[in-house]
């Protein structure tokens, strides 16, 4: 069986010759032809009447896709299920939960914070799609060989000659005519290139090739894992990995529940985390708690600091219930914030205030986490100072 003809090729010696030859080939009406040069020759696109490449459109489309994908993805990830801006109505399974994290006090949907990711994804999608389109679409991925490969012609045009190749698929192709035409252009080393015996690889053989590549990649991965995690740790080279001790999460036959890590004894209290025993019981707190902190310059200064940090915003600097928050709540009539200059509170014991700090009262939440034990009592001393300042007695002047 004779091999099918692929093309007729000719070599030229000068760049001007090849440009001239390309122009002539176009004017002769040939369409399926190509030019091979060792380096880009200026003016060749024009001489060959090549259309501008369509590749930039792929880049543009995928760039815009990356941009919109980044916007959508960040909107969805940071969406709040309780607001309309979140992806609430997408009916997604639980493992596709969003992450509505407030970062830096910004709104969940913060476009300026998204812009860097939008930029990165635009570039990423544009770049990868350009390379993929170039290889897959414009170079025809399954074909990994070409009849011109491994010919004398290719050797010449990749070193110092300029080649013209008219392919047999052209409508006007006639072997004799083409040879004469190339001769008339001044080409030399005119040769007929035959199709190789083997067909160009089919899509499935390419798939098998890719499969082999994937297999090699997996093999390398497994090899690396075995060497670096198993073989290198064979005894006696244990690298102190195995030691005669029990790890917290290991099983252990010594205890009944087979666990190395044991629960602490019932009633154990962590250091600095004394539970509050009068939870929800203000009367007993007032009756039994006594202020252990002495009254002196130092504790009052400390109490004043604690008061201005934690209390004054609502209760006011002078404990008159006229703090900034109180003014706002009065304006909107939501709720009232009390001052401390009432008979009830003047007569209330220190334990009463302590209980409110620990347990909260009405809209006020617990401040147990914010204020330390000694500071709570110092703070109560300072409240007494404020109360006394507004309710000075005659005897104070003596």
């Amino acid at each position, binding site marked *: 069986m004779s091999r099918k003809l692929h093309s007729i090729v000719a070599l030229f010696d000068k760049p001007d010759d090849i440009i001239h030859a390309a122009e002539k080939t176009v004017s002769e009406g040939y369409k399926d032809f190509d030019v091979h040069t060792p380096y*880009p020759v200026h*003016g060749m696109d*024009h001489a060959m009447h090549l259309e*501008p490449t369509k590749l930039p459109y792929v880049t543009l489309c995928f760039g815009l896709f990356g941009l919109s994908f980044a916007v959508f993805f960040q909107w969805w990830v940071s969406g709040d299920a309780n607001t309309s801006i979140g992806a609430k109505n997408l009916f997604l399974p639980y493992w596709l939960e969003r992450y509505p994290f407030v970062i830096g006090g*910004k709104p969940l949907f913060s476009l*300026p*914070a998204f812009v860097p990711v939008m930029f990165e994804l635009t570039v990423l999608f544009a770049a990868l799609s350009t390379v993929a389109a170039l290889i897959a679409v414009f170079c025809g991925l399954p074909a990994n060989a070409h009849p011109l490969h491994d010919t004398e012609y290719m050797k010449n045009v990749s070193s110092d000659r300029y080649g013209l190749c008219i392919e047999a698929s052209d409508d006007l192709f006639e072997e004799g005519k083409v040879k004469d035409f190339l001769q008339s252009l001044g080409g030399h080393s005119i040769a007929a290139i035959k199709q190789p015996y083997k067909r160009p690889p089919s899509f499935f053989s390419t798939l098998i090739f890719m499969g082999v590549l994937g297999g090699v990649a997996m093999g390398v991965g497994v090899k690396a894992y075995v060497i670096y995690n198993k073989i290198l740790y064979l005894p006696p080279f244990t690298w102190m990995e195995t030691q005669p001790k029990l790890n917290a999460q290991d099983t252990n036959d010594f205890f009944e529940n087979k666990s190395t890590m044991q629960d602490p004894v019932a009633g154990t209290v962590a250091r600095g985390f004394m539970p509050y025993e009068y939870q929800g019981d203000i009367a007993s707190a007032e009756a039994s708690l006594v202020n252990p902190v002495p009254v002196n310059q130092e504790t009052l200064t400390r109490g004043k600091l604690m008061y201005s940090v934690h209390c004054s915003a609502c209760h006011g600097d002078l404990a008159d219930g006229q703090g900034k928050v109180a003014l706002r709540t009065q304006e909107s009539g939501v709720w009232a914030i009390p001052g401390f200059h009432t008979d009830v509170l003047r007569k209330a014991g220190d334990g009463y205030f302590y209980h409110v700090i620990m347990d909260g009262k009405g809209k006020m939440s617990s401040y147990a986490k914010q204020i330390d034990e000694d500071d709570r009592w110092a703070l109560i001393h300072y409240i007494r100072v404020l109360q006394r300042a507004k309710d000075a007695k005659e005897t104070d002047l003596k």
Partner: protein
Amino acid sequence: MSSKVQHKNFKGSALSGAMMYAGLGLLGLGGALTIGTYVSDSGRFWSHAVIAFMFLLSLGLGGLFYVALEYLVGAFWSVPVRRINEAMSGFLYPLTVIGLLITVITIFYAGHSSPYHHWLPAPHGAHHGAGGHGDKAHHGEKKAHGDSHAKDAHAKTDKGADSHAKEGGHDDHGAHGHDPIIESKRWWLTEMRFFVAVCICFFFWLLFRHFFVSQSRKQDVTGDHKITLRSSQVAAPFMLVFAGTISIAAVNWLMTIEPHWFSTMFGVYYFAGTLVSSAALLTIMSVILREGGFLHPKLQRDSYYSLGLMLFAFNTFWAYIAFSQFMLIWYANLPEETMWFVARYEGGWMYMSLFMILFHFAIPFFALLSRTQKTNPNRLLFMSMWLLVAHYMDLYWVVMPANPHGGFGLTDIGFVLFASGFVLFFFSFFAQKASLTPEKDPKLAHALEFRLH
């Protein structure tokens, strides 16, 4: 000029004459308008004088930067249009006069109508001479005029109530020492240091401008290849000096208008605007001169691609820098940094800020995206004009929100006319000083062979 090169001589041509006369006319008209409106609103006059000056400085410095950049990186495509950059850098001579005038008057004499009045001493302190005015004089003056401060503050509140509100309640009486932020910046913000820094900047710019251009013209006569080499060696230290001086220029003339503001990116921001606007003027002049037949006849339209690419790239760079500055400040949310953007995020300025995103970035980005667009002379001309306008508006957006008086009037139109007249007149003037093609530059032959395909 050698006889074998068949191109028209710009010097004495109808185009150069038309540019000079049109430039002179616009200069006269703009000057008359601005000076006419000076009486009614001197504050706006000086604010806009700074805008127009900084705009023209962008073009002059950009021209000088591109000349040095070509030497530094050994670029060849720009050699046939280098004389255009050199002519643009000639702007620096008249700008030195204008800049020193503006600086001296706004710093030492303009009082409250100076855009820098937030950190300058109160106006009565400004009437002494420029000489012998160090830190000591400063302190003495503080004591001597301390009692008249209250009266002064009163007069000011009437005039600039809006600006007070915008400054976030800062007391902006400058040298009286009430403002801890301004006091902490006093190591830089004194009239004398401002003035001296400005003089140093102009000194270096003129020095390097003179060196590059005179050497380049010398090469036209001698054809000495060593001149190109020597210029490349000088271009490297120039870049370091340029980075410092353009930052000083941006900080001194633009940032100190709102002295409470902190931003470490402002110098780069102005630099990015400089690159865009000067690339735009370079493109306009290249297209006009090449299509008019004044450049080297072998210069192909393929070279437009490089100009378009530079416009596109530097405009994207501007957007990158502008956004980086905004995003860092927005994220950190520190009052002394956000105040500048808050002022531009309120009222009418918000519309302008949003408009600038479209006008200065999005539309030019897509209008210059493809190669076809970058090589089309009409598109290039249009987009270059567009970007020049965008840079002018950018500077307006930087300077004007600090000006308490709103509105848009004859002053603004006058300065725009003045700036365009300046560009036309002085470009034509400096372009006629030498041949528009550096005939004996060793890279010229290579440059003329530049092709896209």
